[in-house]
C-alpha cells in the first residue's frame, strides 16, 4: 500500500517526509519534478506517474503537492482518497492546510500521519477518533501542558474505534442541544455563445452541524426525494431505510460532518439562474479588441442573486483593458491575464454591464481562442433543484433539540463560452 509520503511546496521543496515501511530516498521525487517541469501549471501534473521501481500518486491541494510512493499494485483511488483525507485532517486540526501551518505543527502532523496509517493500511481516519488520540492544539492547552507537563496524546483507547458506530464517541453532553443542516447546491453548467445550455447538472451536499447529547437517532425526510439521481452517504446513514422509504435515518457523528452528497443530472431540467449577453471581439488590425458583457436574471425563483462575479482568462496577447462597469469593480491582472468583474447583488431593474476596449501587444496575431467566462453567484434560501426537507425527527433521547435547515445555491463550474 502507501509506502512513503512527501509534502512538496509549489517551488519544489520537500518539507516533510514520512515513511511507513523502509525509508525511500528523496531522489524518487525527481521523476515527479520532471513531470512538474513538463506540465508548466501545477494543476496539470498527471496524478499517477510510473518510475522504474515505484509509482508516484500525487494530489495538488492548497498549493501543496501530497506525493505518495507506492511499490505494489494498489487502487489509485484508494490512495488519492486517502491523501485528500490527510489534507482534510490537517485542515480540520489547524484551520488551514498550508506549508506554514504544517511546519508550525510538524510534530503533531507527524504523529497524526503515524496514527492514520499503519504499514500502509489506513488505521484511523475519522476526525472524532483522531482528536481523542491526538488533541488538536489550542493556546490554552499548550499553556496548561507547559505548566503541568501534561501531553497532547490521549492515553485511552478511543471509544468509537471498535464499536459499530465508530464515528460517534460516547458520553457526549451539551447544555444546548441543536442540529442544523445546510443544503448547498452547486450548478455545473456550460452555456454556449448563443445562450443555449450545452450541459447542466447540480451537485448537492447536505452539511450538518449536530450537537446533541447522548445517542440520538435522527430521521430526516424530504418532500421530493425522487429528484435525487445519485446519492452517497456518510457511513452513519442506514442504507436499507433509504432504499425502502427514501428517508435518511442515522445516529449522527458529533459536530460537523457531511451527511450526504447528491447529484441531479442532466436528465432533469436544470434551472439556470442568470443569462449572460456577451461579445468579445479582437480586430485583425490595430491590435485591440472590444468587450461587452451584460448579465440578467433568468430563473431565480423570485430570489435575489448575490455575490455575482465574472472571471475571464484572456488570451496571452491582451496587455491591458480599459473597461467601465455600471456596477461593481473590475480588475485585470496582466501577469496572469485574468479579468475579474466583481458585481455583487444583481438588480433586475438595472442590469449590470461591462464594456470597453482591450489593448493588445502590437504586432501580435489575432488570438485564435475565444476566452470563456466563469460565473460565480450565490442565492440564499433556495435549493435550485427544488429539493426540500420536510421534517427531522429524533428518537432515543428525551430532550427537545433546536432544529434548522438552511438552503443555498452557488455556481460551481459555471462557464459561458464566447
Amino acid at each position, binding site marked *: 500500500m502507501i509506502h512513503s509520503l512527501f509534502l512538496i511546496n509549489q517551488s519544489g521543496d*520537500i518539507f516533510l517526509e514520512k515513511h511507513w515501511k523502509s*525509508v525511500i530516498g528523496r531522489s524518487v521525487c525527481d521523476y515527479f519534478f520532471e513531470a512538474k517541469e513538463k506540465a508548466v501549471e501545477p494543476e496539470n501534473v498527471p496524478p499517477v506517474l510510473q518510475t522504474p521501481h515505484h509509482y508516484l500518486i500525487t494530489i495538488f491541494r492548497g498549493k501543496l503537492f501530497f506525493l505518495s510512493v507506492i511499490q505494489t499494485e494498489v*487502487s*489509485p*483511488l484508494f490512495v488519492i482518497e486517502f491523501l485528500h483525507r490527510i489534507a482534510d485532517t490537517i485542515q480540520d486540526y489547524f484551520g488551514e492546510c498550508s506549508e506554514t501551518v504544517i511546519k508550525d505543527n510538524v510534530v503533531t502532523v507527524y504523529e497524526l500521519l503515524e496514527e492514520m496509517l499503519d*504499514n500502509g493500511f489506513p488505521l484511523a481516519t475519522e476526525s472524532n477518533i483522531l482528536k481523542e488520540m491526538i488533541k488538536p492544539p489550542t493556546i490554552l492547552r499548550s499553556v496548561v501542558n507547559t505548566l503541568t507537563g501534561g501531553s497532547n496524546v490521549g492515553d485511552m483507547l478511543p471509544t468509537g474505534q471498535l464499536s459499530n458506530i465508530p464515528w460517534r464517541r460516547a458520553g457526549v453532553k451539551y447544555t444546548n442541544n441543536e442540529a442544523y443542516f445546510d443544503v448547498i447546491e452547486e450548478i455545473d453548467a456550460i452555456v454556449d455563445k448563443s445562450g443555449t445550455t450545452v450541459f447542466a447538472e447540480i451537485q448537492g451536499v447536505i452539511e450538518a452541524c449536530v450537537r446533541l447529547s447522548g445517542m440520538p437517532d435522527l430521521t430526516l425526510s424530504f418532500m421530493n426525494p425522487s429528484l435525487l439521481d445519485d446519492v452517497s452517504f456518510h457511513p452513519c446513514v442506514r442504507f436499507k431505510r433509504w432504499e425502502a422509504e427514501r428517508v435518511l435515518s442515522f445516529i449522527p457523528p458529533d459536530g460537523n460532518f457531511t451527511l450526504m452528497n447528491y447529484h441531479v443530472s442532466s436528465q432533469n431540467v436544470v434551472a439556470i439562474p442568470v443569462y449572460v449577453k456577451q461579445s468579445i471581439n479582437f480586430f485583425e488590425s490595430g491590435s485591440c479588441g472590444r468587450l461587452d458583457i451584460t448579465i440578467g436574471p433568468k430563473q431565480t425563483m423570485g430570489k435575489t442573486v448575490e455575490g455575482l462575479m465574472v472571471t475571464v482568462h484572456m488570451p496571452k496577447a491582451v496587455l491591458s483593458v480599459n473597461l467601465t462597469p455600471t456596477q461593481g469593480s473590475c480588475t485585470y491582472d496582466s501577469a496572469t491575464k485574468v479579468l475579474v468583474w466583481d458585481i455583487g447583488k444583481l438588480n433586475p431593474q438595472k442590469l449590470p454591464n461591462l464594456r470597453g476596449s482591450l489593448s493588445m501587444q502590437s504586432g501580435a496575431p489575432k488570438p485564435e481562442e475565444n476566452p470563456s467566462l466563469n460565473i460565480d453567484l450565490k442565492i440564499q434560501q433556495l435549493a435550485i433543484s427544488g429539493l426540500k426537507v420536510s421534517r427531522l425527527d429524533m428518537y432515543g433521547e428525551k430532550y427537545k433539540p433546536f432544529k434548522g435547515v438552511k438552503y443555498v445555491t452557488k455556481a460551481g463550474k459555471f462557464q459561458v463560452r464566447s
Partner: protein
Amino acid sequence: MTDSKYFTTTKKGEIFELKAELNSDKKEKKKEAVKKVIASMTVGKDVSALFPDVVNCMQTDNLELKKLVYLYLMNYAKSQPDMAIMAVNTFVKDCEDPNPLIRALAVRTMGCIRVDKITEYLCEPLRKCLKDEDPYVRKTAAVCVAKLHDINAQLVEDQGFLDTLKDLISDSNPMVVANAVAALSEIAESHPNSNLLDLNPQTINKLLTALNECTEWGQIFILDCLANYTPRDDRESQSICERVTPRLSHANSAVVLSAVKVLMKFMEMLPKDLDYYGTLLKKLAPPLVTLLSAEPELQYVALRNINLIVQRRPEILKHEMKVFFVKYNDPIYVKLEKLDIMIRLASQANIAQVLAELKEYATEVDVDFVRKAVRAIGRCAIKVEQSAERCVSTLLDLIQTKVNYVVQEAIVVIKDIFRKYPNKYESVIATLCENLDSLDEPEARAAMIWIVGEYAERIDNADELLESFLEGFHDESTQVQLQLLTAIVKLFLKKPTETQELVQQVLSLATQDSDNPDLRDRGYIYWRLLSTDPVAAKEVVLAEKPLISEETDLIEPTLLEELICHIGTLASVYHKPPSAFVEGSRGVQHKRLPGSAGSGESVESPDTGTAAAVASEAPPAVIPSQGDLLGDLLNLDLTPPTTTGPPPPSSGLQMGAMDLLGGGLDSLMGDESEPVITSRDRLGGDLGGSPAMGTGFGATPAAMPASFNAPVSSGLDDLFDLGGGVGMPMGAYSPPKTVWLPAMKGKGLEISGTFARRAGVIQIEMTLTNKAMSVMSDFAIQFNRNSFGLAPAGPLQVLTPLSPNQSIEVTLPLNTVGPVMKMDPLNNLQVAVKNNIDVFYFSCQYPISMLFVEDGKMERQVFLATWKDIPNENESQFQIKDCHLNSDAASNKLQGSNIFTIAKRTVDGQDMLYQSMKLTNGIWVLAELRVQAGNPNFTVSLKCRAPEVSQCVFQGYETVLKN
C-alpha cells in the same frame, strides 16, 4: 509557540545540544528534545547519531513521549540494528500492559522495526496479541503479520501465523476481519500460487457481513478480495451483487469503484434476460457519473476506468454523453481522457452535440488538446457514417481558420475519411490544396501527398504539386519520401503521357541517392513492376484498398477482460495487465471474467495469458491510425505480380511504361536480336548506368522474357561490382537477427538485431518495431562498458517517429575506443535504448569474429617465433564436430572472417592449417586447425598470450565454419 522553534539551532552544534537535553533529568525537557529530534527527522536530516540517547527515553509512562520515541525507532532501527536490541525488553513488557492501546502500540511498532534479530523476539508477543481479548489489539496484530512476512516470510510460515490470520477472517469484529483480509491480500500478492485466500461460500458470507459494518478502507479491502471469487452459479452471483450494490452509494470513491469492479465481474454470470440484469445495468450509471464531479485526480482515475467499462458494456453510459463534455479549466490530463470517451460514446443519436463540442474544443488554447479534438472529429466521421458529411464540413471550417496545427491535423484526418468513403468528398480537395505551403509536419505532408496521388486524375496540376515536393526530396522524412514515391507512381499510371520525367526522377532519387533501404526497396519494386508489366503495376499500385475499421485504439478483447477484473487498480490506469509492469510480483495470476453459466473454466488460461495479451495489444484488425504508409507496400507484398510473359501491347498506359524504358520494351516486341543492344544502351545511358536496374532484373530472372538475358547479366555484374554497398554481407559471417528486447519488456518496442563487420567497420544492425499503440520517437542508444570497448561511433539515426506497427532498420557503426570492462561471457554486451517512453536495457552477445581485423595475417617467421614463445599452458584445444568441409574450403571460409591461413602442412592425410588473427585491441591469436579427410571432426589448438579469449575465439571458429 509553534513547532518551528524545533528547527532553530545554536552555534555549538545541534547534535551536541540535543544529546545534552535528551539526558536531562527533567521530563519536560526530555520530551521537547525528542520533539526536536523528530522535527529534524521529518525534514530528512540525519539524526541517527542520537540513537542511544533517544532509546533511553523509552522507559516512560508518558504515552506521548513513548510514541515519539517509537517514531524515531522505526526510522532508524535499521541503521543501528545492535542498538535496536536494547529496545526489545520494553516492547515485550508493553505487550503485557493492561492498557490495550499500549499493547497495540507495542506490537505495531515492533513490526515496523525491520531488523532480523528483533523479529525473533516478536513472535511470542505477536502470537499473544493475535488472540488478545481486545479487538483493537487483534486488528493491529493482523497487520503486523503482513509486516513480519515482508521481513521474513519463512518465519511467518514456520510459526503458523498464516493459519491464525485465516482464522481471523471469521472474527466477530468487522474491523479485525477487514484487516485480516488486507494482510492476507498483501501476503498473497507475493505468493500468487498459495491459496491463502481460499474463498468459499461460507467465508464469502462472512466477508459480506463484515462489509456492512467496517470502515470505508476495510470495505475496499473486502470488495477487492470478493472480486477474486468465482461464484458457483448465477444465483450465488446475483445474491452477491445484491449485497454489494449499496456500496455504490458510498461517499468514498474508491469504495464505489471497487464495488463497480465486483459488479462488472459477477454480471458476466447473470443471464441477460434476467430482470435483475437490467436493473443492475441501470444502477451502475449514476455512481460512475458522480465520480466525475470529484477532485480532478479522482476524475482521472475514474475516466481511465470508464474507458474500459464503455468498451466492455457501452450500454451503461450511452445516455450520459454530456457529463464528458470538457470544461475549459479541467486539467489537461482530464480533458484528454474525456475526449477519448466522447468518441467511444458517439453514436448517430448524439453526434450533432458531440460535433458541436469538438468544434468548440478545436479553438481552445492547449495545442495537444486541440489536435486531439480535430482528430476526434475525423474519428467520428469514420465511426458514424451519417455524420461524415457534417464532419467534413466542420473540418473545412477549421481549415479556414488557417491555424497551422489545426490545418495540418485536419488534413491528416481527412485522408482517413477519404480512405473510408472513397469517391465521395473529393470536392474538398481544392480547398486542401490551397494549404499545401503551410504544411510543415511530416505526417500532414505525407497525408496531403497521399491525397494528391490517390486523386491524381481529378487534380489538374497534380504533377506540378508533386513536383514541388520533389525539390527537397532528401530533406523530407522517410514517411514523406515513401509517400511521394508511391503518389508519383500512381500519378504516372493514371496520366502516363505527361509524367514520365517525373517518375524517372523520383525513381532515381529513391534508388540511387537514398540511404534508406525501405525507400530503395520500394523504388526497385516499382521500377521493376513498371518495366516488366505495367498492367500488373496498375493492378498492384492502384489496387482496391481494404476499408479502415470504425473503431480505433480498441483494447484487444482478452486484455480488456483481464483489465475489467482489475478495475480500480494501477493496471486499469495504464491499461496494461499487472504482470506487464508490477515489479516484484512473482508471476501475477491472470484474471479472467467468469463466463456466463459455467463456461468460466474454458476461458481460463493462466499460462498463455501474458504473452498473448501483451503481444496482441495492438488490435490486429485496426489499421494504424497514423497514416497508411506501409499500406501500399503491403498490398504489393500480398498481391505479387502474376503476369510473367511479355505484356500485350494494347493499352495507352502500356505505351507510357514503354517510353520509360526507352525503346527497350518496344523493340522487344519486334526483332529478337536488336533489343539486346537497345536495352543495354538504355541501361547504360538514360538511366545513368543504374546498378539498381540490374538488381531489379537480377532478382527475378524467371519472370523475364528470354531476350532480356543479356542486360540482366550485365545488371548482375554491376551488382557484384557494387559489393557491399547495397548491403550484402561480404563474406564475414553475420548471425541472423535475434530478438534482443521483446515488446513485452520494451513497452511495445521490439528490438531484434545482429552484428556484422562490413568493409572493416563493425556494425550493429537492428530492426526496431513499434508494437505499442502510440508513436515512438527520440531514440538513442548507449552501451555499458564491455570487454573490447565497443561503443557507438555516432548517434542512433532514427529520423522519423516510429508509428504503431511500423518497423525500421537501423545500422550503426561501432568503434572500439569505449571504456573497457571484462564481461562474462567475454562477448557479452549490455545495451540501453531510450525512446520517448522509457529507457530499456537488454544484453546480447556479439560474434567474436567481428573483432578480427583485416591485417591479422602474421608473417611466417613471426608466427613460428610467437608460437614457440607463448607458453604451453596457454594452449587450449577444442573439437569442432560435424563440419563437412575440406581444408581449403574451411580456409576460404575463415579468411572471409579475417582468420588467415599462413601455412598448410599435410601429414598422414591430415591437413594442418596454421592460422592467425588479430583482435581489435591488438591481441594476437594463433591457431592450428587439423582436418582429417573424411572426418567431420576438426581439432583446433589456440595459443594466445591472453588465454581467456580462447574459449570465445573457438566459438567464433565454430560459428564461422558452420554457417
